[in-house]
């Protein structure tokens, strides 16, 4: 272990406490029942991650259908009705079933290991949180086979398109979102309880790894906004089934109220999908630059600032809905402000690289691509914040380009970076370097081919969510579709790398990456089922 003395925390605990106490735990039941009944944070973490990967492919197939239809002008493969179901389900599955559970899975695996806790604070609740998800999303996917089809009103399900004019299956959609929401809230409660109560002795809040910090803040966001989502879908349920008129103007309701409520949930939701990504990248960049993270405290404050601001910007999704001038100005200014703490983060990562000793293992490649491409998404976000210009950008492919840049090479790349980073800890093997490199480069090329031309399509006037388009958009769409097929296909490599890594490969020591700092690297690789039965002593680095 080559390292810089005095620049990393010193970890002190015996290996016996890390892994040797298995006899104190009863043997788990065998077969499927083991996975159904498990309360172990590592097993539940794996369940979350596998579930998320499966959903990533299902949501991905929906995206491929969309891109195939948009490959050239005219309707070739699917009718508009089914196309709308595909765009809607792609969004819902990717947001609620792929990205969010992936981060929860990483949290389950890594938060106890990073703070020196033996497990999550509420293990049975943890089991329940996970098993709600397959129920929720089996229900959601089953709506595709119901009469009238599945949700076809976009992942934002604006009323009254989703209420008065929605398909009969909308009630099932509401139920499935309720179940997924409960799962998220319970997961968030568990994470907060774990972080606040179960840190290793000596570890203050300001000693926690940033992944732990970002997840703590994310959990508070989840607890704050998931009930708002639950409220708005319950109002929909009432409008559809019980004759209320929350969102029906004919009965004195207000369709715009729906959007206020939805985006009060929806904007913090996008930070729910990106803050943990910041945490992962903040762990990986110092490891492979062999230099401590620059500005740890400012990273924490910036994360908190972003979280607080996220409650004050929801109406920037509604600039053209007919808001009064003063509201437009307020939400424009607040939205622009978000660029400041986000900028601080990017500057900190880059300063961490500056005068480091940098190497380019797969986790680092994904983390670096994250920094560049997420920043590009941030730039288009800054452009979208300018309300007068948003009158032109709103609901076009420019917006589609923007949020895919922050979510795909943003959130998804960070998840993949995290998986490559922690696979040695989970499996005891390094991922296959050559395959991982192929996966990375094909993904980077694919993602940019897919999403960069969308900026131009949007500026040139192409609205989003259309199954057919005017001829001047044909070239942009052709390139986007080819890029999407490339990106989609290269994710099979990711599966191959993960499967191969589980089955074998170069053996990884406890300290799998030589400069990695946090407590998880003090337990053996693969991490035994039970770790930190007695808490380690945490000592912060000397200055």
């Amino acid at each position, binding site marked *: 272990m080559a390292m810089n003395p005095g620049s990393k925390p010193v970890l002190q605990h015996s290996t016996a406490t890390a892994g040797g106490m298995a006899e104190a735990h009863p043997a788990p039941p065998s077969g499927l029942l083991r996975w159904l009944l498990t309360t172990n944070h590592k097993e539940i973490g794996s369940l979350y991650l596998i579930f998320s990967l499966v959903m990533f492919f299902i949501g991905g197939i929906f995206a491929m259908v969309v891109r195939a239809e948009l490959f050239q002008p005219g309707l070739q493969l699917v009718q508009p009705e089914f196309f709308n179901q595909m765009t809607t389900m792609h969004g819902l599955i990717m947001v609620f079933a792929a990205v969010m559970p992936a981060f929860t899975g990483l949290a389950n695996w890594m938060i106890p290991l990073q703070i020196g806790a033996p497990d999550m604070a509420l293990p049975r609740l943890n089991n329940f949180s996970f098993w709600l998800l397959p129920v929720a999303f089996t229900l959601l996917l089953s709506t595709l086979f119901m009469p009238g089809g599945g949700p076809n009103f976009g992942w934002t399900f*604006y009323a009254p398109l989703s209420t008065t004019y929605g398909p009969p299956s909308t009630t099932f959609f509401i139920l499935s979102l309720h179940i997924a929401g409960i799962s998220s809230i319970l997961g968030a409660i568990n994470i907060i309880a774990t972080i606040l109560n179960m840190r290793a002795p000596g570890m203050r809040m300001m000693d926690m790894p940033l992944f732990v910090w970002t997840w703590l803040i994310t959990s508070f966001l989840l607890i704050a906004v998931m009930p708002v989502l639950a409220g708005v879908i319950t109002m929909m349920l009432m409008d559809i089934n019980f004759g209320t008129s929350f969102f029906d103007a004919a009965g004195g309701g207000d369709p715009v109220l729906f959007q206020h409520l939805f985006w009060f949930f929806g904007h913090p939701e996008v930070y729910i999908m990106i803050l943990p990504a910041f945490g992962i990248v903040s762990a990986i960049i110092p490891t492979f630059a*062999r230099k401590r993270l620059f500005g740890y405290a400012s990273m924490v404050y910036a994360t908190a600032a972003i979280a607080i601001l996220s409650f004050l910007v929801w109406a920037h999704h509604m600039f053209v809905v007919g808001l009064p001038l003063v509201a437009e100005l307020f939400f424009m200014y607040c939205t622009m402000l978000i660029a400041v703490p986000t*900028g601080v983060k990017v500057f900190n990562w*880059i300063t961490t690289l500056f005068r480091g000793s940098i*190497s380019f293992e797969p986790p680092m490649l994904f983390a670096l691509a994250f920094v560049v491409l997420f920043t590009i998404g941030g730039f288009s976000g800054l452009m979208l914040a300018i309300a007068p210009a948003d*009158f032109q950008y709103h609901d076009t492919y420019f917006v589609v380009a923007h949020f895919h840049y922050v979510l795909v090479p943003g959130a998804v790349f960070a998840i993949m970076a995290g998986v490559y980073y922690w696979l040695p800890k989970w499996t005891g093997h390094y991922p296959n370097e050559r395959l991982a490199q192929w996966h990375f480069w094909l993904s980077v090329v694919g993602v940019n081919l897919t999403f960069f031309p969308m900026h131009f399509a949007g500026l040139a006037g192409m609205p989003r969510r259309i199954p057919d*388009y005017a001829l001047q958009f044909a070239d942009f769409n052709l390139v986007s579709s080819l890029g999407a097929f490339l990106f989609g296909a290269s994710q099979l490599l990711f599966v191959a790398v993960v499967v191969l890594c589980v089955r074998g490969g170069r053996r990884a020591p406890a300290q799998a990456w030589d400069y990695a700092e946090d407590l998880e690297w003090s337990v053996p690789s693969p991490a035994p089922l039970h770790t930190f039965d007695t808490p380690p002593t945490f000592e912060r680095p000397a200055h």
Partner: protein
Amino acid sequence: MRTLLVLLAGGGLLAGSLQTALANGWNMPVGVTELSGEIYSLHMIIFWICVAIGVVVFGVMFYSLFRFRRSKGAKAANFHENTLVEVIWTAIPLLILVGMAVPATATLKKMYDASDADLDVMIIGQQWRWRYDYLGEGVAMTSNLATPRTQIRGDEPIDASANYLLEVDEPLVLPVGQKVRFLFTSDDVIHSWWVPELAIKQDTVPGFINENWVRIDEPGIYRGQCAELCGVDHAFMPIVVRAVEEEEFEAWLASRREAAEEEAMGIDREWQMSELMERGEQVYGSVCVSCHQQEGTGNPPAFPALAGNEQLLSDADWHTSTVINGVSGAAMPAFRNTLNPVEIAAVVTYTRNAWGNDTGDSVQPSEVAERLSD
């Protein structure tokens, strides 16, 4: 240092090629109003600010990645905090943002001042067409997609010279040089009326009225589309604005008024079956076809079939009233304000006699007019 220069040059090259690309129709149009020009400028200013920040930030990043490679023997430094630097890179973006907010605020204020308009036009979104009502002028019309469904479905090749998906039967005609106030609302779901060259995008919300305005500088044809997902045919409700000189506009208004009066006189006379069928097919093709389909097969359960529909065949009265009043709680809109009595009579007659629905009966415009006045 040399790496840094190379990187900066590379960044400059990239910026240069971006500019070329943007000049070649890959960018937001400058448009044909004062405000569209201002919006375009705001867009370009913020774009170049982002490019400049990007060149600096990515320049430093890639410089570090090349310069401080471990494979080249780089040794890591040991710094990890600097309050002064943190304050500087918080303050500078803040100043840039303030600089950006000032012109944006000014433009936004102008966009919100719809007072003292010369002409008011009500724009009503409806699944999946636009209705335009020149308030106080006695002229109103419905604007439907003109691209044939056969081209969209691929039954015949796309006509590349005919503005595929961006052509309508009735463009919105507006005078240049005059301040036109738009009032937006919707009959069903939320739509969004967007014409890029006019830099106007405004949601039409059922039950509420939004406002926006335009003063067009140049005569011409300006095309746009619905921007808010509004159901199955969201992609198929384009907008065409024909901006003409003021005299031409007045002449056009007068001719439309005359045509409306002529049509009103047609209500009282007896119409032949063949006349009604011909007119009905035309109305069906522009208004009904998107849901009920060319052959009247519909798209159940949301859009029932009309061909062979028992209730329709047995009850002409119910049939007419459904077209006039719509079906509450379902997708079928009320056409009492959208279609005139002649059109309603014609389309009812047509659907009662097309695709093997050979009832042989017809509905006269006068009957419809009577029902409408009830």
